[in-house]
């Protein structure tokens, strides 16, 4: 078991290290998030009430758009540097590689989501502090679901010609339940309702996460063959 965790950890460590040195994904993603805010502002106009009504949907729209870019790049390093065989040849259970890549994606998205929340709070004059603990729970469950499918499909499309096109076409319908659940739960949490109100949705999100994780872990070795 500890060898399994170590294998997953090595993948995370490798990706975090190369990201820390190149800052390739993170810088561009945070900047992209800032641009999204401008787009939302232009689309909705100056009316603050409208922004607040649409806020849960806007937040998750921003997360999924950033996620589409982030998850699509999951295996970019391996593909562009001809290191795919390195992953294939790594000894032991391949699902450890999946979990490592997944953890890296969740980490990346956590930073992007934190940046987005701060940007939303700043530019739209919102206050998330009261709802923050519950919001973090919703974000964690939602992001795990998005990343679980995103990492699997990111690997699946990494070697394809039309991957930029095919990746969102496969991912978006698959994560409809996560988006529905996350948006509704975020809405309830931001409205200051007790967490029990959002409980059915949190349960659904958790169930979806488990299903996606299990399918991802079981099928990843077939995807990795390239």
């Amino acid at each position, binding site marked *: 078991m500890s060898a399994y965790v170590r294998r997953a950890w090595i993948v995370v460590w490798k990706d975090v290290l190369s990201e820390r040195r190149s800052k390739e994904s993170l810088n561009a993603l945070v900047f992209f998030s800032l641009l999204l805010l401008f787009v939302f502002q232009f689309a909705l106009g100056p009316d603050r009430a409208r922004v607040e009504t649409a806020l849960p949907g806007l937040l998750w729209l921003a997360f999924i758009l950033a996620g589409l870019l982030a998850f699509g790049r999951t295996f970019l390093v391996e593909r562009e540097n001809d290191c795919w065989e390195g992953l294939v040849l790594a000894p032991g259970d391949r699902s450890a590689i999946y979990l490592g890549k997944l953890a890296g994606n969740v980490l990346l998205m956590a930073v992007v989501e934190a940046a987005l929340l701060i940007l939303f709070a700043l530019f739209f004059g919102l206050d998330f502090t009261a709802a923050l603990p519950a919001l973090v729970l919703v974000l964690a469950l939602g992001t795990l679901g998005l990343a679980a499918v995103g990492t699997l499909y990111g690997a699946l*499309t990494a070697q394809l010609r039309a991957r930029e096109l095919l990746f969102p*076409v496969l991912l978006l319908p*698959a994560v*409809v339940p996560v988006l529905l659940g996350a948006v509704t739960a975020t809405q309830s949490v931001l409205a200051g309702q007790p967490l029990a109100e959002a409980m059915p949705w949190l349960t659904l999100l958790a169930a979806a996460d488990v299903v996606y994780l299990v*399918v991802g872990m079981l099928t990843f070795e077939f995807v990795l063959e390239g």
Partner: protein
Amino acid sequence: MAARILGWLALVALLAGLGAAFGYAPREAVQGNVQRIVYLHVPAVLTAYLAFALVFVGSLGYLLTRRPGWDRLALSAAEPGVVFTGITIASGSIWGKPTWGTWWTWDARLTSTAVLFLVYVGYLLLRGMIDEPDRRARAAAVVGILGAANIPIVHFSVSWWRALHQPSAMIGPGSAPYPWWMKAVILLNFAAFALLLGYFVARRAEIARLEDMHAG
């Protein structure tokens, strides 16, 4: 030969289903003749689910055995599955216009059927993008398995989503229990569609086998 028998059986069953839907089933008192769409609509969606179950079985079979026959089953079931889902949505739309007054509404069942349609259109798009047979089969199998595992989650999430927002005022005749003869005609048509699906799958799998032989 087996496919040919299946085809004739499907034709006979389809004619019987058509006769039952127009001849035997009475005209609905409120909606009139348009209600007969139920005999196309419900069997089509049941057949689509059957097809996607076959995609799941084929996908699982391929990953476990790596025998190309399983992949051909998945492919051959996915194509008619998408068509039957399309028929479901189109016939529902045609039914919805005179009875609900709108072609489309974001009702739970409409939405989850549309999501199902999108998932398997994506599946077919993916298949079209990969030339190498084993790679195509593996990638498609993963999407086929996740797609099937997702069906109940999509279903629950979408029905809660609507239920939490507004009561389902738009649900058609489903809210009232069907009389037995209506169920019988629906089942007869489902049997006919299922036979037709079997015929399509057998024919399509045969074409895929010949294609593979030709390519290999």
